[in-house]
């Protein structure tokens, strides 16, 4: 079974549909006094799954910053995403400890299995079902290799263990779509 990486997926949220997202209200809800910009961006992403670029201008106004400063912080940190994550998002650790236990070979297996590339940007207007991200250390270095799939942590990964996890997640997504 192959999972197409890029295809139109009915259930996925739109990339940055400003009307649906209502950036002004988002900012009002989260840009509370005493909160740092980083904390506000976390709050927005925790609610929505990503930080829409349309929130940059209202955030700048609300926090008395320049748009450049807000954009700078939003794009500096790897954790923040400016578009929705794919319904199945895999974050594989590519750092030293996991390398010593074959994470690079596992990465090749994952790419072959899913037909996706790590850290690839989706083409405009297309929504990925599976998205592969490289991360650097999940703190499970004695139980390498480690990954998260839709935020859930797994350790001591093998190709067959990955296949089973992927099948479970894809099935769950298809059922909820």
């Amino acid at each position, binding site marked *: 079974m192959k999972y197409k990486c890029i295809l139109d997926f009915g259930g996925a949220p739109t990339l940055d549909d400003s009307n649906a997202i209502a950036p002004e209200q988002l900012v009002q809800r989260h840009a509370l006094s005493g909160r740092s910009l980083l904390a506000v961006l976390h709050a927005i992403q925790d609610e929505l799954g990503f930080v829409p670029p349309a929130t940059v201008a209202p955030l700048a106004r609300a926090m008395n910053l320049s748009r450049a400063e807000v954009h700078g912080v939003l794009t500096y940190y790897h954790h*923040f995403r400016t578009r929705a994550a794919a319904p199945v998002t895999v974050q594989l650790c590519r750092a030293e400890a996991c390398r010593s236990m074959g994470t690079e070979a596992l990465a090749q297996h994952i790419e072959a299995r899913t037909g996706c590339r790590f850290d690839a940007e989706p083409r405009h207007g297309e929504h990925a079902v599976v998205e592969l991200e490289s991360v650097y250390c999940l703190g499970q*270095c004695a139980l390498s290799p480690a990954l998260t799939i839709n935020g859930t942590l797994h350790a001591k990964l093998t190709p067959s263990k990955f296949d089973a996890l992927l099948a479970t997640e894809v099935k769950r997504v298809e059922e909820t779509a």
Partner: protein
Amino acid sequence: MTRIYVPRDSAALALGADALADAIAREAAQRGVAIELIRNGSRGLLWLEPLVEVATPRGRVGYANVDVTDVTSLFDAGFVDASFNGSAHSSHVGIVDEIPYLQKQQRLTFARIGITDPLSTDDYLAHGGLEGLKQALTADGDAACEALIESGLRGRGGAAFPAGIKWRTVRGAKAAQKYIICNADEGDSGTFSDRLIMESDPYVLIEGMIIAGIVTGATLGYVYVRSEYPHAIATLEAAITRARDAGWLGGGVLGSAHRFELQVAKGAGAYVCGEETALLESLEGKRGIVRAKPPVPALVGLFGQPTVINNVITLATVPIIFARGAAFYKDFGMGRSRGTLPFQLAGNIKQGGLVELAFGVTLRELIDDYGDGTASGRPARAVQVGGPLGTYLPESQWDIPLDYEAYAAVGAVVGHGGIVVHDDTSNLAELAQYAMHFCALESCGKCTPCRIGSTRGVEVIARIRNGDTSTRQVQLLRDLCDTMVSGSLCAMGGMTPYPVLSALDHFPEDFGLDAVQPNAAAA
């Protein structure tokens, strides 16, 4: 009623501990067996996770690598029966406290992990919790700083600066608001000791921070935790709430006149924010860009105010020093490296986990006696100590005692105590190129040697690996490393050459080079 322990640490969770705990509870209910299920922290014996423990009159009996499918057979064998000796079951590992890996350790900072329920304040108090804080509340602040200096405790994040001197500087600074910041941005691959403290004994960190506040006159603390540690963040936040309810935090710490408040701040996936000044910028809500020093954060720190910024392990070690005295702690260790360090056995290792020992132990002892060799069963070949910015040590250096000065003498770093083992299938040229690649990904961009040098480093190593092994290319790489070491603003650019040059010097064959390097002696 039999007590059964199933860890809630994320290492156990990553191997299915939640489903396991559910299955045990379900099976017990079905069989009508009364059990008390406790979600303890991890013992740090990570290769045994999920490690289920059953309380018996002889001590807590362990069952290792337990899977949901083992639950029925465990109950069939009678593992909830206190008289059951357990050895009939294949997962049985005996009395956990008697496992040599654990028994031989010198657990000071990690004395409680895995034994207690991490969120139980009663458990914490029953196991010596708050003894250090009580001492600090009666001590004179100047004397407390001197005692901390006397204990020899140095910054455990990697820089190894004496903690007491930092505290004395902040104590002596005049300001309306001072801060205590815990650096929990544990981004080094091969390290997980900060995570273990936060998930398995969060109160010891909280106690250490309160003591820091009382001694230095700071009333507000932040724990800056990386976003990759959601379980640690959740555990800390729950622990802080309970500590506040118990009167440990807030307006009157333990009924004293001291005030101390504590908050968790979440990082956002930037490795360089583990550098203290980048962390300060990030905590202020900005991009995590390194600041030039001086001024030091102890004088001009968060929002320009005097700030203690210490690593998790440094702060979590403070309570035992205050409880047992400087002399007790100083008695461990060697040379100017006093006390213990939690070594983290990681990577290609059969028995990976946390090994807290006094300074002076060797890599060979850790890898052979504790780690039991590689996970792959192949010979170990290179060991990276101290995270992605640490050197790769070949076997000829595995008998050097782990001590800050002894390691520095061979151009290596002890750092945060992370030990990543690579077997004989490793390619050190590839790992060197990766080190430069990682620096390029994570450089904050403020200084040129790091921002541009890292990318040029990836390119030149790629050229050598592609067959251009001319002296010109190798010299270029060495010159580039020299520029990065001497010209970078912080350790990110300044130490990325450590793994690169050690790979080049000790494993030239992986680069397609002859064993003797023209400049190896000078490097």
